[in-house]
């Protein structure tokens, strides 16, 4: 489908629908994004909480290890045993002393998991270790601690130091204190397994915490939990030298948060959608009120004006551009109206009687002078043909001239014997021009009555006809489009239809028209007992003429006789007459009335069929 084929209204609706769709999508996306952001914020927050809790847990280990180390480091027995070991190489006493805390316990026994006690000399060389506790840790200080102590000056070496480090098997925590206090004999390393203390993170954060080794092995057990209610938040605890030691997964209870977020999401999305919808509806109303409706009204008015209703004016209600458009179009229509009036006035003011006939020699235009000359009213004139107006056979005259003088094929100046409405005959000088009547050949005749002492105005009439020929041509075209606007050119509408009918169709319509009229008259006379003259007078559809003091219905008579019926009968008159009779004979259910009704239906279908064919675009 091409976009150009859409109307502004459809395009506007489509655009607003797209905006509404985008608003819905954006609302949902924003809702999801906000929810995700809230969860991310919650996760970051919990991650920091776990970090703090992990550091607090290490601090507790550090405190306990430091206290144990200080106590053992100041033990004279251990100091002397270490000195003896260094001097004699005998380790048994020292090992026994180092094993003692494992066997007899110590103050913070239940708070830390002591896995080894090791003794080093001041050069950090291994001396001995407890036989109790973990095995295979090695015989040297953790490299990280060794490096730091090596870089310290003598005074700083008095300070204890600790670190979380990776042994060959697992992460361990070591606190190194001086053996011998301020007068050191060596170093005592207290090695702790931090796994015992890791669950303290859960106590501190007050959330279930799963702890995994970096190999993926789960160290502790957590109660079963719903995936929807708990949000897993991961934190990696690193050793002092930056290696990952434990993976801690905190399970944040987000049931309340989720419920709150869902509620907020629903409220936000609903509010946003309602707001968007209200705004869209308001915008649509504004568009409709100030653009689409004025545009539709303007389009309707323009179409009506183009059809000839020049009395209309374009509605200028709407936005400022509509005022400009409406004013411009109204000005244009006004000019057309003035021009048309001028043309009509020119023809009407002419002294000569000007009459135009179509190809079927029926009147399609006449001016006021023609009405005065022949004595007919407007309605009567429209039903006339050449035969009723002229005694002479004008068409024969033209034909003769055309056959003899090819140079003057379009113009003929002659005397014509005319027939007045009251029956008397009079002579006129006539200038006959062959003109184009809606793409068919017709005649325009300018008539001037011959009076005594006055010369025929041949040259003058010829000039007039030439001058008005263009006007007539223009008027005819205008009248074709605007049949209701110009009284004198009323026949053109029928002519325009008739002009494109085939000869067969014309004949069928004529026959049908005569048939309807005959049935109507028969019904009128039989059912109502009235005469043809009564029908003409009461219906006011047909003119009644006075011929030598006798009323006649010449026009009506034509429609009752196929031979003299106009070649383009007025279908509206026929229909109006039939309907008039049917109305009058409404209470009669006679065969004649029924026959008339059926024939009228058939005639209507015939006429409408012909017209619809004509109205179809070629």
């Amino acid at each position: 489908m091409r976009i150009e084929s859409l109307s502004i209204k459809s395009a506007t609706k489509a655009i607003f629908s797209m905006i509404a769709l985008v608003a819905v999508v954006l609302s949902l996306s924003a809702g999801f994004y906000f929810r995700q952001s809230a969860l991310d914020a919650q996760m970051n927050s919990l991650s920091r909480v776990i970090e703090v809790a992990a550091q607090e847990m290490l601090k507790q280990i550090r405190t306990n290890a430091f206290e144990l180390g200080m106590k053992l480091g100041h033990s004279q027995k251990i100091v002397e045993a270490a000195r003896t070991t260094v001097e004699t190489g005998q380790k048994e006493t020292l090992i026994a002393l180092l094993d003692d805390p494992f066997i007899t316990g110590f103050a913070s026994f239940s708070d830390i998991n002591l896995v080894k006690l090791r003794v080093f000399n001041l050069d950090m060389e291994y001396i001995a270790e407890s036989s109790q506790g973990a095995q295979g840790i090695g015989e040297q200080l953790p490299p990280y601690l060794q490096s730091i102590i090596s870089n310290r000056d003598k005074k700083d070496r008095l300070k204890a130091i600790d670190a979380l480090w990776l042994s060959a098997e697992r992460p361990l925590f070591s606190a190194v204190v001086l053996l011998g206090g301020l007068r050191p004999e060596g170093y005592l390393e207290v090695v702790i397994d931090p796994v015992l203390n890791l669950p303290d993170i859960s106590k501190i954060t007050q959330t279930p915490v799963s702890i995994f080794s970096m190999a993926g092995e789960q160290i502790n057990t957590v109660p079963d939990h719903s995936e929807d209610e708990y949000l897993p938040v991961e934190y990696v605890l690193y050793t002092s030298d930056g290696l990952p030691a434990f993976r801690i997964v905190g399970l944040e209870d987000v049931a309340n948060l989720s419920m709150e977020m869902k509620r907020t999401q629903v409220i936000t999305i609903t509010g946003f959608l309602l707001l968007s919808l209200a705004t869209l509806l308001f915008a649509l109303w504004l568009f409709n009120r100030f653009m689409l409706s004025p545009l539709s009204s303007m389009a309707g008015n323009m179409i009506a004006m183009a059809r000839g209703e020049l009395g209309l004016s374009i509605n200028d209600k709407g936005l400022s551009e509509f005022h400009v458009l409406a004013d411009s179009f109204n000005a244009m229509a006004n000019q057309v109206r003035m021009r048309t009036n001028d043309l009509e006035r020119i023809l009407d003011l002419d002294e000569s009687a000007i009459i135009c006939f179509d190809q079927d020699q029926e009147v399609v235009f006449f001016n006021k002078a023609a009405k005065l000359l022949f004595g007919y009213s407007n309605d009567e004139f429209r039903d006339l043909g050449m035969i009723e107006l002229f005694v002479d056979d004008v068409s024969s005259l033209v034909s003769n001239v055309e056959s003899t003088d090819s140079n003057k094929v379009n113009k003929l100046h002659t005397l014509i014997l005319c027939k007045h409405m009251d029956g008397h005959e009079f002579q006129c000088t006539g200038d006959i021009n062959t003109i184009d009547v809606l793409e068919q050949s017709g005649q325009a005749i300018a008539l001037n009555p011959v009076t005594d002492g006055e010369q025929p105005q041949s040259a003058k009439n010829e000039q007039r006809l030439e001058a008005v020929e263009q006007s007539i041509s223009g008027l005819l075209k205008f009248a074709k489009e605007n049949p209701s606007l110009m009284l004198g050119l009323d026949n053109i509408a029928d002519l325009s239809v008739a002009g494109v009918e085939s000869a067969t169709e014309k004949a069928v319509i004529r026959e049908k028209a005569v048939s309807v009229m005959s049935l109507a008259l028969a019904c009128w006379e039989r059912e109502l007992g009235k005469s043809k003259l009564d029908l003409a007078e009461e219906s006011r559809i047909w003119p009644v003429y006075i011929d030598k003091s006798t009323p006649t219905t010449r026009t009506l008579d034509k429609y009752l006789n196929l031979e003299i019926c106009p070649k383009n009968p007025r279908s509206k008159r026929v229909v109006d007459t039939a309907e008039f009779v049917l109305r009058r004979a409404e209470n009669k259910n006679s065969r004649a009335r029924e026959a008339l009704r059926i024939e009228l239906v058939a005639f209507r279908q015939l006429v409408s069929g012909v017209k619809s064919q004509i109205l179809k675009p070629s």
Partner: protein
Amino acid sequence: MNIFKSFPLFFLMLSVFLLLSVSINSPADEKPIAPESIEGVNIVTAEEAIDLILADPGMPIIDSRKKTEYVKGHIEGAVNISNIEMTSDVLQKVAPEKNNAILFYCNGVHCLRSSDAIHKALSWGYSNIVWLRGGWQEWKEKQLPVLAI
């Protein structure tokens, strides 16, 4: 209406109000701070204190804290004499030579015990006083050797 009869009551209420206002605005929860310096006293850090201890192993070290705090942990070689219990005679027994160096400490900068004890010692004629103003808090934070009983 007898205004004069109700005046004592009004005065009482006003006084209570003023006292409450003062108590609300006063920094009741602020901890006391030991003086930045004491005239004639050498203030040292933990590291400088170690230097002195290692240079003079016989230097008296006075722990001015309470007994319970001392038991939990103290500097190696320190003697527990709280500022309240410290008399000229008691100090004389620990530091007979008034011109020799003597180290005082308590819990830290928020503790006024050691400064009080120092003022006493100064009044008794001790002239070479060294003050670990950061006290036990600084010592512990630097993870220096401590002794518990």
